[in-house]
C-alpha cells in the first residue's frame, strides 16, 4: 500500500504498528485509533456546517433573484464566521416552568443524532468508520433519534407553539419514515447484504438506474425527514411562530440550525451512497483516495437539488402532506418492493444479462409511476369542486374605482 494511493489507511496502519510496537494490547490500540477517527469525523462535520450555511445562503439568493450575503470577505464568503461569534456571546434565556434537564439535553441530542449517521457511511473503499453488517438497520435506528430530540425540545419549553410544532414534527417524521424504510429494502434486495460498504461495492450499475422510482421516493422522504420546504411545517412562521425551538436562545438555538443543515447534507450523502454509487468512479481501484472526491461530488450535487427544491416550492398544508405520504408514497413503495422482488427473481432465474435486467427494471418503474399518476389524476377529477362563496364579489371601500369622499 502506497501513501499516494490511500493516505488515510497508510497513516492508520503506520500508527497501529507503531502503537503495537510499544507493547499495548490490541483492543486498546483499536480504541485509540477509533477515538482519533471519530473525533476527526465529528470535527470535520461540524466545520462543514460553516460551508453548508454560506452555500445555502448564497444559492438561495441566486434562486430568488437577489444577492445573498456580500459584505464580509470576498463575495461575502466569510459571513458565517461573524454570525457564529455573535451567537456564541448571546445570553441563554430559560423560560419559566421549563423542564431544565430535558430542555438542555435536546440541542445536544439533535446534533449527535445527525453525527451518528456518519459512523457507518463509507468514504472510500477502505476508509469506513464502522463496517458493521447491520448498517441499514443502524441507519433506521439512529435516524429516529432526531425525532425524539425535537419532541423533547417542544415538550420541555412550556410553550404552546413549541408543543404544537413538536406534535407536527413527530407526526411528519414517523409518517415519512415508513416509505423511506420500505424503499431501503430495494438496495438490500439487489445486494443481499445490509452492510453499507457492501451496498456501494455492489453498484457496478448505480441503483438509480435499476430503480429510479425508489431513489425518488427516498429523496422525497428524506426531504420530509429533514423538514425542508415544501415540508417545513414544523417551523411554519405564519402559523406557529418558529415551532419547537421558540424558547431557545444563544448557542443552544444555534445547534438546532447546525443539526438541520448537517441533517440535510447527511441525507444527500445517503442518497449518493445508496443510489448513486457512493465512492464508485473511474480509477478508484488503483487510487482509493479518489473515492473521497467522487463521494463528495455526488453528495454536493444531491444537496444542490435539495436546495433547489427548497427555494422553488411553496409550503404544503398539513393534511395534504399526510395524505401524500399515506395515500400515495406508502402504497407505491409497497407495490414497488413486491414487483421488484418478483421481477428480479424471474430475471435471475432466466439468466438475463445485466443490460437486459436494467432495461426491464427501468420499464417496470416507469409503468408503476405512470399508473400511479393516472390514478391520482382520476381521483383529483372525481373530487367535487369548491363552490364560490358569493356570486358578486364584495368590493373594498376606497378602492381606486370609487374615489374617496374624504378631502385632505
Amino acid at each position, binding site marked *: 500500500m502506497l501513501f499516494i494511493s490511500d493516505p488515510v489507511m497508510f497513516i492508520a496502519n503506520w500508527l497501529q504498528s507503531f502503537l503495537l510496537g510499544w507493547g499495548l494490547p490490541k483492543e486498546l490500540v483499536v*480504541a485509540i485509533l*477509533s477515538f482519533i477517527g*471519530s473525533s476527526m*469525523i*465529528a*470535527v470535520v462535520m*461540524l466545520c462543514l456546517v460553516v460551508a453548508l450555511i454560506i452555500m445555502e445562503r448564497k444559492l438561495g439568493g441566486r434562486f430568488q433573484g437577489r444577492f445573498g450575503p456580500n459584505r464580509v470577505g470576498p463575495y461575502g464568503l466569510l459571513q458565517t464566521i461573524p454570525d457564529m461569534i455573535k451567537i*456564541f*456571546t448571546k*445570553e441563554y*434565556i*430559560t*423560560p419559566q*416552568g421549563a423542564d431544565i434537564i430535558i430542555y438542555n439535553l435536546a*440541542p*445536544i441530542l439533535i*446534533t*449527535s443524532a445527525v*453525527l*451518528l449517521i456518519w*459512523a457507518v457511511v463509507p468514504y472510500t473503499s477502505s476508509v469506513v*468508520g*464502522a*463496517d458493521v453488517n447491520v448498517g441499514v*438497520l443502524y441507519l433506521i435506528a439512529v435516524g429516529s433519534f432526531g425525532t425524539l430530540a425535537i419532541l423533547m425540545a417542544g415538550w420541555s419549553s*412550556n*410553550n*404552546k*407553539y413549541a*408543543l*404544537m410544532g413538536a*406534535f407536527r414534527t413527530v*407526526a411528519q417524521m*414517523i*409518517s415519512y419514515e*415508513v416509505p423511506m424504510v420500505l424503499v431501503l*429494502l430495494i438496495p*438490500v*434486495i439487489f445486494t*443481499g*447484504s*445490509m452492510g453499507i460498504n457492501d451496498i456501494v461495492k455492489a453498484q457496478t450499475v448505480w441503483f438509480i438506474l435499476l430503480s429510479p422510482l425508489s431513489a425518488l421516493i427516498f429523496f422525497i422522504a428524506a426531504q420530509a425527514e429533514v423538514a425542508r420546504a415544501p415540508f417545513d411545517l414544523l417551523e411554519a412562521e405564519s402559523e406557529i*411562530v418558529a415551532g419547537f425551538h421558540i*424558547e431557545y436562545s444563544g*448557542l*443552544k438555538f444555534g*445547534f438546532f440550525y447546525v443539526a438541520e443543515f448537517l441533517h440535510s447534507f447527511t441525507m444527500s450523502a445517503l442518497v449518493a451512497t445508496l443510489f448513486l454509487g457512493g465512492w464508485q468512479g473511474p480509477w478508484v481501484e488503483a487510487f482509493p483516495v479518489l473515492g473521497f472526491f467522487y463521494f463528495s461530488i455526488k453528495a454536493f450535487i444531491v444537496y444542490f437539488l435539495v436546495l433547489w427544491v427548497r427555494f422553488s416550492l411553496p409550503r404544503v398544508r398539513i*393534511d395534504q402532506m*399526510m*395524505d401524500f405520504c*399515506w*395515500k400515495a408514497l406508502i402504497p407505491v413503495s*409497497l*407495490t414497488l*418492493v*413486491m414487483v421488484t*422482488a*418478483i421481477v428480479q*427473481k*424471474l430475471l435471475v432465474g432466466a439468466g438475463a444479462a445485466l443490460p437486459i435486467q436494467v432495461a426491464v427494471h427501468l420499464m417496470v418503474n416507469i409503468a408503476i409511476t405512470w399508473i400511479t399518476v393516472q390514478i391520482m389524476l382520476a381521483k383529483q377529477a372525481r373530487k367535487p369542486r369548491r363552490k364560490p362563496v358569493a356570486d358578486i364579489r364584495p368590493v373594498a371601500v376606497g378602492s381606486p374605482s370609487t374615489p374617496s369622499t374624504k378631502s385632505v
Partner: protein
Amino acid sequence: MDGWIYLGIFFLIVGIFPGAPILIAYFLSPRKPNKLKSQIYECGVETVGETHVKFKAQYYNYALAFLVFDVEVVFLFPWAVAYNQLTFFGVLEGVLFLLILFAALLNVWRKGALEWV
C-alpha cells in the same frame, strides 16, 4: 468486533462535541435574568392556562398505523438479505406478507383513520 468498539466510542464523542461549545458559551455569555425576560414567548400576549393540554387525537391514529408498519418492515429486512439464496416460492411468501400489509393499509384507509380532520 473492531466496528463495534468504534461505534461505542463514537457514541461518546458525538455527545461531547456539541456539548462542549454549549458549556463554554454558558461561561462566556452574559447572565442577567429578569422576570419579564424569562416569560413564555407567545407573540407578546400573556399565556393563558396550562401548556400541556390534550390536543388532537388524530396524531394517535397515525402513530398506531406507523407502529404496525415499522415493525413489519423490520421483519422484512432478513428476507431481503437472504433474497439471493431464496427459491421463487420463498420470494412469493415475502410478497404475500407485503400483500397482507397492503390489505391492512387499505382497511385503515377505508375506516377513515387516514383523514386529517
